[in-house]
């Protein structure tokens, strides 16, 4: 098969899956089989595409050309491949987990849930393989729209209110700022294609680099750089599998992925460094890392605490992109992978606690670890990986990010502030995430508590174990992600 048709296949497969799933409302078991079938075959297709890419097939192909020179087109590229691999492999895990979770939790509208989930994945695939900024923007919007009903899934007043915040911030920022940025790039460069070394160099006046770049950093609301972060805690009203895959992996990573893409292939790291646009902007992700960590400490609701932790971790990636040097970008790309596996374990564990013990607050977890040792062990692994300790994958990305800060081209003071932030943030991680398993294992079970609490259903446990194991595996061998990130970064230079 042609590479181009294979890419189209990867985009259409989840859509067709969604169509079939939506017709199977009356047969939940068959529907679940189709969900798993679709997700597995998607992974196979993505792996096939991965092999093509390693053989060096990267030619772009055009689907439509609405304006002269401005196309909807797709191509294979290392960074997109990395993201596609993460998203599609985690979709399988999440599907398994979701089947257990949704049934144990007796959620309504499960068909709609699984169908829209597949649509969202299709949009993510399109974002991964997009060959220019317009295509990326198009599917960025599709992703927002298809996840909106998932956020408001519960249909309660609170869910609707959160949905409004979600849509308001994401669509408002993308149409008001992101689109404006895209337009300015088109106006100055006359080209939106992702190209090695960027397209803006020499075309955009240097004094405009800062405002235009700021339009992207804030306009890509999915990256949740403060003050654009409010939607993420709001989205936590969604069922846990949604929070896990979409709001720890697919949606938020689509945001930071877009920022890295823009940095590497639209501005070009060299141009950014020359113009100094990143020297000031980098303070925003830096402050976001710290502030989000502090806010996370004050949150008692587990999912909200995880949401603020995600905000802080996303800003690691944005910070890595804004460093605009090869080590920082490498760290940022790696962190997409590492954070995805670690955070999804955490969310799954939180979901398992909710489903079986019906606990949503950190303060209620005392002693629960002895009842659910497996779940909390996974939680601990996720936590340690996020903190960045060996032997967990999270160490590598933090390592390269830290090295990247040392090579930062900005003022001396900023450089040390950045390094300091990374170190302090790791300590804060211990404080707000580490506290949870500690409390669960060493705290005392309150008097008169439910004695029947036990581990979550089997599909949930499988879903829990897989990403946690991958976290460990990635420490010993961060392949193929490492070489892909390295190639992506070096091609952008």
């Amino acid at each position, binding site marked *: 098969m042609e590479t181009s048709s294979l890419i189209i296949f990867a985009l259409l497969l989840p859509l067709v899956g969604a169509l079939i799933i939506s017709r199977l409302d009356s047969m939940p078991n068959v529907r679940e089989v189709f969900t798993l079938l679709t997700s597995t075959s998607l992974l196979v297709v993505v792996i096939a595409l991965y092999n093509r890419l390693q053989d060096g097939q990267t030619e772009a192909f055009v689907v439509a050309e*609405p304006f002269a020179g401005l196309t909807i087109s797709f191509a294979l590229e290392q960074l997109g491949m990395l993201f596609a691999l993460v998203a599609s492999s985690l979709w399988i895990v999440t599907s398994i987990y979701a089947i257990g979770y949704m049934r144990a939790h007796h959620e309504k509208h499960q068909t709609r849930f699984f169908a829209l989930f597949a649509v969202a994945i299709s949009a993510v695939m399109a974002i991964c393989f997009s060959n220019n900024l*317009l295509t990326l*923007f198009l599917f960025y*919007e*599709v992703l927002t*729209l298809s996840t909106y009903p998932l956020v408001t899934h519960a249909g309660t007043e609170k869910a609707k209110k959160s949905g409004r915040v979600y849509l308001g911030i994401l669509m408002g920022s993308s*149409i*008001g700022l992101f689109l404006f940025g895209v337009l300015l790039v088109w106006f100055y460069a006359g080209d939106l294609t992702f190209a090695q070394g960027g397209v803006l160099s020499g075309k955009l006046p240097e004094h405009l680099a800062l405002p235009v770049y700021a339009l992207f950093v804030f306009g890509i609301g999915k990256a949740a750089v403060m003050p654009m972060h409010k939607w993420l805690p709001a989205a936590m009203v969604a069922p846990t599998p949604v929070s896990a895959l979409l709001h720890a992996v697919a949606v938020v990573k689509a945001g930071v992925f877009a920022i890295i893409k823009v940095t590497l292939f639209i501005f070009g790291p060299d141009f950014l460094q020359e113009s100094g646009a990143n020297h000031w902007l980098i303070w925003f992700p830096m402050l976001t890392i710290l502030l989000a960590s502090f806010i996370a400490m004050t949150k008692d609701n587990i999912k909200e605490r995880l949401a603020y932790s995600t905000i802080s971790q996303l800003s690691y990636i944005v910070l890595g992109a804004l460093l605009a040097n090869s080590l920082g970008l490498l760290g940022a790309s790696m962190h997409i992978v590492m954070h995805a596996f670690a955070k999804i374990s955490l969310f799954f564990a939180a979901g398992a606690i909710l489903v079986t013990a019906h606990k949503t607050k950190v303060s209620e977890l005392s002693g629960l670890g002895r009842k659910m040792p497996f779940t909390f062990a996974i939680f601990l692994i996720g936590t340690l990986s996020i903190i960045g300790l060996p032997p967990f994958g999270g160490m590598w990305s933090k390592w390269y990010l830290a090295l990247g800060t040392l090579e930062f081209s900005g003022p001396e003071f900023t450089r040390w502030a950045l390094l300091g932030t990374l170190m302090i943030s790791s300590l804060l991680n211990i404080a707000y995430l580490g506290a949870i398993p500690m409390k669960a294992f060493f705290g005392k079970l309150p008097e008169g508590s439910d004695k029947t609490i036990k581990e979550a259903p089997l599909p949930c446990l499988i879903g829990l174990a897989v990403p946690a194991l991958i976290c460990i595996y990635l420490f010993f061998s961060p392949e193929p992600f490492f070489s892909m990130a390295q190639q992506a970064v070096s091609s952008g230079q």
Partner: protein
Amino acid sequence: MIHEQLSVLLVVIPLLAAPITAMFNKLSWSWLITLLVCASCCFFSAWLLMDVANGEIIHYELGGWAPPWGIEYRIDALNALVALIVCIIALCTTIYSRKSVEQEILPYQHGMFYAAFQLCFLGLLGITLTGDIFNVFVFLEISSLASYALIAMGKNRKALTSSFHYLVLGTLGATFFLIGVGLAYAATGTLNMDDLAAKLPLVENIQMVHTAFALIIVGLALKAAIYPLHLWLPNAYSYAPTVISIFLSATATKVAIYVLIRCLFNVFSLEYVLTTWLPQIMTVLGAVAILYGSVRAIGQTGMKKMLAYSSVAQIGYMIMGIGFLSQQGLTASIVHLFNHALMKGALFMAAGLYIYRVNTATFENLKGMGREMPYTFFAMLIAALSLIGVPGTVGFVSKWQLINAALEQQQWGMVVIILLGSLLAIVYVWKLVEVLYFQSAEKIRVQGVESGSERIGSSPLGMTSAMWILALACIYFGFNTELTLGTAGTAVDLLFSAGGTK
């Protein structure tokens, strides 16, 4: 070339069919005749467009009298495109209309209704095709008179007052236009547009030309509902019968804007327009219209009225594009003229389906209807996203083009206003979506649908399919812009080269 006869056929067919329709006072027959008329007109106009898409101009002399004395039909890419969209909308509206007319219009009026509809249709086509400025007035009156009657047929009693309101303002506009034309005639002694364009610059009595210009522009602005002359529009569109709301919202103001473009560029030349304040005024009025229309749309409590105010805002985009007086800006306006017809048509059709089912389109009664009528809801959603300008829809194409035009002239304020307009559109569209999809019905819906039953249980195929045609067109033309952007580009080249030679 034989094809030039096509142009006159477009007007003659409905003109002959209208009285015949009036005689058959039976719904099925009059519907069928109208359908045939619209389909054949659609076919001919597509043919015409193909002939002129490469920049050719077709001249047809009515009755063999050579211009400037005789009336001439003059078709280039611009009016062929406008004629095509008028025909497409007329065809879709007719497909849609049958059940809706059966429900909303009194049985003895069916024949008259379709006859008036065809007259309105032919009037709009005539305005579009003719190359004679007095002839424009004649057709303007034909279409306007027909539409006053059509609007007054609305079931709500407010239809009568809104129709009267429209009649007063519409007549005022037409009179202004006529006086303007009269003055131009007094100054030059000709009514043919080409001839006028050649002779107007030679007129020494510049005061008279100024007066004619001002009167013509204000008259057309009234017809096109350009802010602040839009007052007739919201009521007229919301109380008219559904079918008429669809047809007029998608075509009537568009045709008036077309005449405006024609007058600015082909009658009065670009150089002349540049000596006036008009471009700046139009840009600013466009900006105000965008903000005002969107804000008012947010405040509405009924779907039809919300859509009507959104039309005021969308007209603002077109006026702003004209006001830039650049190739890019004008292309944006023309493309938006086409695109907006598609999306507003689809949206009003969705509103009509809700009215068909629950007899009203106020938000209070529409709660939860989106879940009950998912197919209608999704078609509406596509059109509504296009109203916001989400990429992949037609709305994005025109907004992208318009913003580029603004950037080209470094009009940063206008860029911000266009983006702000999109954000406001998100607000009102989402208000609608929340009502339809997320709120649950509070009380039993609707009293007394004609058939005697509480409400109607299913949506007729004709209505839904017509709506889906337009909704899918919203997506198709969002990706394939060869027809829209390509033709608009050709049209704009012609307009600007005409300005250059004179």
